[in-house]
């Protein structure tokens, strides 16, 4: 059974605003993969932590996973993100808590919670932000006890791997939206993912596997774009352009850059009605651009609204796009054909 490792959120409350993932992508015209953001003080603000992310873990055992085992697995996932060499984000475990994820207490908490109504959601990340200043006040991640979980080093049959799912949710917590770098097939119970090249793909692999415990170039580029270190913008470059159909911009096209030198795949989307897209964090060199409609996951996993254009044929840009060191490749217009 394919299960969304995605995000559902409680409602916004009071003077603070709870951010939903899809809104950010819809509003953002910034250089982006799919980065999260929100409206604050009348402006669009990218979701970005200003200081080390301090998190606690709910002191609650579930069958098969003790609280300490859960914390160790989650800690490994945080370490994986923190080890990205071109990003500066830091995470700090502050201890166990009796609070549950979702409690609005100013503390970022990860833990198990039963959410039987979300029977297709493995885990979810929520945010509490200051609607005026844009400061991120807390971010909670809950793991749904409707499912069976494992922290075994090699995984356990029919159980989802805590570290794998934590890696995905910590990507959200850090400000990343979903990636569309994956392939799915439809089955009687929904979409089943057959392959993915980003831990931020919105559909989890089947239970029992642990192959998604490591970050891919798409994840690394995305995190580094949000939290660049001093060398990131000097050593990597970016690509920007438009996706056009019959001379008009295409909204929501999935644009993939492939390096035939390194094999790296990095994806983004055209994020406005002009069909504009941009992606940073690419190693210098020639890239192949591939553009496809967003048809390997539910569109709602990436965008809100029903104006995403999927009525075009996948294709390639016929020139190499050469990414310079510390700059932007020439702007490209990729023309696609209607189906």
């Amino acid at each position, binding site marked *: 059974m394919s299960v969304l490792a995605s995000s559902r959120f409680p409602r916004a409350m009071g003077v603070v605003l709870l951010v939903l993932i899809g809104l950010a992508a819809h509003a953002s015209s910034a250089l982006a993969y799919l980065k999260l953001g929100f409206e604050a003080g009348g402006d669009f603000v990218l979701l970005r932590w200003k200081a080390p992310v301090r998190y606690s873990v709910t002191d609650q055992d579930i069958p098969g996973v003790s609280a300490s085992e859960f914390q160790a697995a989650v800690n490994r996932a945080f370490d994986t993100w923190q080890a990205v060499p071109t990003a500066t984000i830091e995470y700090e475990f502050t201890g166990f808590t009796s609070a549950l994820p979702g409690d609005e207490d100013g503390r970022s908490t990860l833990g198990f919670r039963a959410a039987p109504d979300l029977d297709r959601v493995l885990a979810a990340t929520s945010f509490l932000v200051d609607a005026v200043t844009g400061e991120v006040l807390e971010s909670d991640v809950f793991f749904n006890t409707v499912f069976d979980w494992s922290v075994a080093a090699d995984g356990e049959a029919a159980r989802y791997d805590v570290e794998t799912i934590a890696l995905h949710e910590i990507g959200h917590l850090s400000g990343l939206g979903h990636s569309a770098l994956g392939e799915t097939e439809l089955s009687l119970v929904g979409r089943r993912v*057959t392959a993915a*090249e980003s831990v931020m793909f919105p559909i989890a692999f089947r239970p029992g596997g642990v*192959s998604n415990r490591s970050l891919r170039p798409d994840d690394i580029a995305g995190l580094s774009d949000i939290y660049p270190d001093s060398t990131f913008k000097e050593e990597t470059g970016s690509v920007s352009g438009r996706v056009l159909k019959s001379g008009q911009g295409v909204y929501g096209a999935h644009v993939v850059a492939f390096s035939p*030198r390194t094999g790296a795949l990095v994806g983004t989307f055209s994020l406005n009605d002009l069909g504009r897209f941009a992606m940073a964090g690419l190693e210098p060199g020639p890239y192949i651009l591939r553009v496809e409609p967003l048809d390997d996951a539910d569109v709602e996993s990436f965008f809100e609204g029903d104006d995403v254009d999927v009525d075009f044929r996948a294709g390639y*840009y016929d020139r*190499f796009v*050469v990414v310079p060191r510390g700059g932007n490749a020439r702007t490209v217009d990729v023309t696609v054909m209607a189906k």
Partner: protein
Amino acid sequence: MKTLCLVLALGSSTVVFAQPPVPGRLEASVGGRWSGRELVGSRDATLTQPDDGRFPFFSTTSEEGQAVAVEGRLGARLTGALQLEVAVSYGRFDLRSRITADAEEIPDVTVSETITQLTVDVGFVEYLRGLAVGRRVVPFVSLGGGLARQLHEGRTLVETAGFGYVGGGMALLMFTRPEAGLKAVGLRVEARGRFRQGGVALDDDVHLSPEAGASIILRF
């Protein structure tokens, strides 16, 4: 043993006397050079499968197309037959990738860009005067190496390749005036095997390709 040494010495001096001189100590030449295409890497775009296998997204096979360049060369004779040369060339070629086997059955397509290349190399030429045809056609062998600065399309990125070559050819001296400042004018044709690594190539392998060139030579 003494007899054998004497025979060898006589044979050697006989060859020396048969060799036509290559007039002048300095040589300048201007000409053109052609390089053959070479495969520069194949790589598949793949996605991770649940069992850690690789899902083929699409495949690429890349090549550098044929190149044509203009070339200038300066040489100085070190001995009667050995010449040291410095050469500079400027040319263009296409870098191409053929994309096949797309997972969503996009028809095969080729993406490309034009590379502008500047090369500088240092080499040695040994004139084989003993194999000369008459006094005007002198074969030679060559050996050298250098650097290629390769500029991607759009002038966005420069990359550097190292290369070496071995080859040979003929120098045809159309007229000689040993007593004048310009001592000879001729034509030089040459074929080489070039091995190169790095630059815009999409892999780390050493690539071998054929080269051929022709130039007008002036000897001083």
